[in-house]
């Protein structure tokens, strides 16, 4: 099976590689073409003073040739990564390591992405993060029900287990620098659009408003493969017509509170559930570097987000009162993957693809990991950048990703549907979380992204207990009219 497809690929390659036909084709004159087409972007960039990009290659005609998937290259494969968040930086690092000519475009180098910044323990290990990046080690996690029943779900954590709290500007910068050290060319600029001038097997010309050097200028950059890591509002996704996802709006206020109160949150994170703080998510108080992040999110009632924010502030009450709001931020969080995550030689990773879990709203680790897996796939399939790759090659990343993480996403989807459904369900959820067994399972799956086998007796007990909790809290609820069915509209 595999060999056959490889053979046909080679055969196709020979036929299409008649270079004359390629070179003869004049570049399409598009009215909105930016910049000087006679010179390549790469050489333009080389002229930028103190530019980080140090490419001074003449526009070689062979660069422009149309290569079929799998065809041998007489120069390294060129990959552009749009976005320098965790997804982009990790994809760039992997590509650059393999000797691929890697460009990473980021519009704002000190970007402080609106984010809670919580990362699981396994990310620190897997991505070799130095300890300075972790501002706080949270090992107490409180879950607070609508009727203010609190459970401390961190009680089963071992001494060396914690949730890392990071500042995104620090984390992202570190990951980007590492990509650069490995040979990626980091371009400070805004990605504006891209086009394929010589058909779908031809190179992509990316249009970038470069901020490198003193003055802004428009440059073109020609590459073979594009990785869209430009977040939830991805422009790359729009260009390849990847389709939409439902999204939550997450709102966060950074609040500086006095020392005593800060002390309380030293290694404690709080999660509030209830229809008051969010109809379908949770509100949080996360300790940050020198302040707390207080926020909430919702998909189904986004216009009311500020009221939910007011409610979370009220629910946290005295614990944050008197604080000063130093920053307000909001950002969409994707709810599910886009219908299309790969198109031709363009792949999406991280938030651009839609990889945030339900229930916990976790996306940093999954962004970094998907970026890395995509980079690995590009490196492996292009034989370390020596041959052209195509959609099927990129899809090896997608296939592995879906196989590896789909169950995690699905479980969290189910949990969200069952337990964030009404206040009664949330009361039950909090009750359930007081079980040490549940805590252990939850933390193992969050911190290590692995699922350990349970013990059948405890499983049964848990099931029984959960049913009991749900029954009791539903019985206690005075009905409030129909609740929302999540899912299809």
């Amino acid at each position, binding site marked *: 099976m595999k060999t056959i497809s490889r053979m046909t690929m080679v055969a196709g390659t020979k036929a299409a590689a008649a270079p004359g036909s390629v070179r003869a084709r004049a570049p399409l004159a598009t009215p909105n073409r930016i910049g000087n087409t006679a010179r390549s972007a790469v050489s333009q960039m080389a002229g930028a003073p103190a530019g980080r990009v140090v490419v001074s290659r003449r526009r070689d005609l062979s660069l422009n040739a149309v290569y079929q998937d799998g065809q041998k290259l007489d120069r390294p494969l060129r990959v552009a990564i749009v976005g320098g968040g965790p997804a982009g930086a990790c994809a760039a690092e992997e590509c650059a390591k393999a000797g691929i000519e890697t460009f990473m475009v980021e519009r704002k180098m000190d970007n402080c992405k609106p984010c809670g910044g919580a990362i699981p323990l396994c990310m620190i290990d897997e991505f070799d993060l130095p300890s300075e990046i972790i501002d706080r080690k949270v090992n107490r996690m409180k879950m607070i029900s*609508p009727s*203010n*029943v*609190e459970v401390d779900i961190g009680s089963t954590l071992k001494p060396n287990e914690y949730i890392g709290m990071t500042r995104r500007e620090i984390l992202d910068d570190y990951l980007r620098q590492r990509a650069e050290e490995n040979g990626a060319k980091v371009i400070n600029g805004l990605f504006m659009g891209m086009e394929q001038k010589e058909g779908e097997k031809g190179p992509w010309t990316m249009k970038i408003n470069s901020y490198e050097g003193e003055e802004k200028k428009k440059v073109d950059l020609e590459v073979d493969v594009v990785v869209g890591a430009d977040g939830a509002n991805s422009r790359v996704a729009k260009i390849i017509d990847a*389709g939409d*996802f439902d999204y939550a709006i997450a*709102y966060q*206020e950074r609040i500086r509170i006095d020392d005593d109160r800060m002390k309380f949150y030293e290694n404690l994170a709080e999660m509030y559930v*209830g*229809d*008051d*703080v969010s109809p379908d998510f949770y509100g949080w108080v996360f300790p940050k570097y020198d302040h707390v992040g207080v926020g909430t999110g919702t998909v*189904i*009632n986004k*216009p009311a987000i*500020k009221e*939910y924010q*007011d*409610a979370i502030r*009220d*629910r*946290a*009450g005295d*614990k944050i009162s008197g604080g*000063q709001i130093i920053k*307000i*931020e909001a950002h969409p969080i994707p*709810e599910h*993957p886009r219908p299309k*995550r790969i198109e031709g030689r363009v792949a999406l990773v991280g938030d651009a693809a839609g990889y945030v879990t*339900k229930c916990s709203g976790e996306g940093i680790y999954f962004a970094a990991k998907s970026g890395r897996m995509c980079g690995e796939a590009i490196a492996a*399939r292009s034989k370390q950048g020596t041959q052209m790759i195509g959609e*099927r090659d990129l899809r*090896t990343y997608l296939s592995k990703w879906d196989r590896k993480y*789909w169950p995690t996403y*699905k*479980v969290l989807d*189910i*949990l969200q549907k*069952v337990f964030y459904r009404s*206040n009664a369900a949330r009361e039950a959820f909090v009750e359930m979380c007081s079980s040490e067994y549940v805590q252990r*399972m939850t933390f193992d799956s969050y911190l290590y992204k692995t*699922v350990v*086998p*349970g013990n059948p007796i405890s*499983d049964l007990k848990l099931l029984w207990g959960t*049913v009991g*909790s*749900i029954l*009791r809290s539903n*019985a*206690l*609820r005075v009905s409030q*009219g*129909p*609740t*929302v*069915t999540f*899912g*299809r509209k």
Partner: protein
Amino acid sequence: MAAPASTSMTRTTRRTTLFRAARAPRVTVRRSPVSRASENGSTAVVEAKKERSPSPLEKGGTLDGEKALGKDPAGATKAKLNKKLGTASEQTFEDERWVNQTWDLSQFSGSDGNTDWDAVIDAEMERRRILEENPSPSSLKEKVLFDTAIIPWWAWVRRFHLPEAEKINGRAAMVGYFMALVIDGLTGTGIWDQQNSFLGKVALNVAVIGIMFIGSTSDLGKLKGLWEEATFYDEQWNKSWEGVERPEDDE
């Protein structure tokens, strides 16, 4: 029996009640970004735009009309934000039997000297109802200690005749369970393969049973809705594989 009157509320105004009655399916509060910004000394980030083309807040899964019923922020929050007229519209829960953050069971003894669990259940129902409309701050000093599990099971059965218990009787349970297995089989997503993944197993079981409790599954239409709800996410995930041959894992 708990006379509702014994649960007293301090009510500075009746506004909340009014708001509740006038509950709109969708949030209508709209504050000017200006007042907001000056309040916080910072910029406002989100603000719903005027109608016509829907704002980003109104797209991407935002529900309205029927579907959003009962999903508004709490009455107290809305009331507080809706008017800047000074009079706080706070209802606080207060009950002399609620002592040290739990129900003082000694005050619930019935004529026979035993605890009147019915009364406890009623009192807790009323407490939760009030909290739903008037969420109260979680407090450092006063931790809620009451645990519904202390009420014996027979008290629940007697109080509610447990209609939910009838719902999970054989048929419904079987349908739901079977459904989950079929979904799994159809989508080939393999949660069930993960037999040793305990979380997956529990979640699946909990989902099936939980959904049946929470939404009433008495009629077929709802069952269909349930099916769609259970498979919706799977469809969203599988979209990128429609009509595409999956590469081998070892490629």
